[in-house]
């Protein structure tokens, strides 16, 4: 285990995960990488991975085999960083990126809970489509819609600057003072702490609203600008 961890180092970067390979033969490195992925399946599943292969030389077959093997385990290989021009050419041939620095659409960052303070928030500047789940140990701000089938889960409060038609859960670890603000919460499923409410059956209240927990019951009120 410690062996595979020294051969294969994994760190989070803005674009997903960066895997750096140590000094060993490709067979050993590949086995170490696969072992890491197998033992931490939940962590790797759905991840976007860039691999820094150092000076290893890869041909098309090795690299496409690696991409398929990773794809079978739910890992999306998008870039191969290398010092070898042959490997770079191979990566480009397969449509993989060879630089990790270029700006990419934002991916969800998950910070360990202990590093997130009460006032910290994550900024999601796009619409969340069906099947997307955003989870954050602090507060969440979404600039865009939350479509049906999307989930937003925060330990703190949530603000949706858009229409909410999916599921929104504030105070997920039991914080009863968490609140949900939204420009249009009328078709969403809202939960605070352990109390849930589906607003889709209710008429009216389509304007900006605030939902909070009062005496164990979800309470919806019009979000007024001049309210202090």
């Amino acid at each position, binding site marked *: 285990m410690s062996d595979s961890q020294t051969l294969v180092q994994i760190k989070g970067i803005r674009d997903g995960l960066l895997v750096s390979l140590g000094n060993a033969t490709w067979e050993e490195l590949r086995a170490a990488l696969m072992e890491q992925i197998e033992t931490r399946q939940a962590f790797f599943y759905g991840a976007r991975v860039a691999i820094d292969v150092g000076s290893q030389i890869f041909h098309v077959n090795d690299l496409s085999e690696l991409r*398929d093997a990773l794809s079978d385990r739910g890992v999306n290989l998008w870039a191969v960083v290398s010092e070898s021009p042959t490997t770079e050419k191979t990566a480009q041939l397969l449509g993989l990126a060879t630089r990790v620095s270029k700006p990419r659409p934002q991916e969800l960052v998950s910070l360990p809970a202990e590093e997130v303070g009460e006032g910290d928030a994550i900024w999601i500047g796009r619409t969340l489509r069906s099947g997307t789940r955003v989870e954050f140990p602090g507060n969440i701000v979404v600039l865009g819609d939350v479509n049906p089938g999307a989930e937003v889960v925060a330990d703190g409060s949530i603000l949706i600057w858009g229409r909410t038609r999916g599921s929104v859960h504030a105070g997920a670890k039991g914080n009863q003072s968490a609140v949900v603000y939204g420009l249009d919460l009328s078709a969403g499923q809202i939960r605070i702490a352990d109390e849930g409410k589906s607003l889709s059956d209710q008429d009216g209240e389509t304007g900006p609203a605030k939902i909070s927990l009062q005496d164990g019951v979800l309470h919806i009120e019009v979000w007024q600008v001049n309210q202090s």
Partner: protein
Amino acid sequence: MGAQVVTITSGKGGVGKTTAVANLGVALAADGARVVCIDGDIGLRNLDIVMGLENRIVYDVVDVIEGRCRLRQAMIRDKRLPELFLIPAAQTRDKTAVTPSDMVRLCEELRGEVDWVLIDSPAGIERGFKNSIAAADRVLVVTNPEISAVRDADRVIGILEAEEKGTPSLIINRLNTTMVRQHDMLSAEDVLDLLAIKLIGVVPEDEGVIVGTNRGNPVALDPKSRAGQAFRNIAKRLSGQDVPLMDLDSNSSLWTRLTNLGRK
């Protein structure tokens, strides 16, 4: 230069991916382009039937990938349009017979040969879908004006954005204007309101499509068919021409159109 690889996908099954591929292939080829349609639905092949070429299949896409035949041998020439080809799916294998890298290689080989490669994706978001989008330069998402189809389209668009295939364009298929007018069906605006991507065409509900599908005669070949016209327009827009959206509401009265305007 080289071909543009366009994948047609949807998430939900039965919304008209295969019909769209057959009709767009026919429409592009009728305009003089060289087109290859690839059936990506390995194990559940359909595109050959819709194009009317099922009894000409000798080799399929898995044969090409596994090296049992040359690419040329698996390209079935259409019986009506000499510039249209089909690479059929294997019926006796499953999606794992092909990998995303295989599709990238196959399409690279085709790029030099033709102007368009159209890939018919299977339903779902698993391996077959991943195979189908691996080589795509451009993706078209087909949906019906139905909440379940729209939800799946939304999911697929999210995945495409995450995989950096760019934002796809949308085809709304089987729109029934009478039902929309009676508020029994989502309108094109309702669908676009949720999905918020570029619309490349709306195809009206048309019984002729079912007849054409069963006979292996895509409606885009029928100059009188309204659905056929819609597909021909989409093909033109794909090639970069600016064609206005068809007026699907042409048989509604002036009064209902005015009230619809007033409602907005």
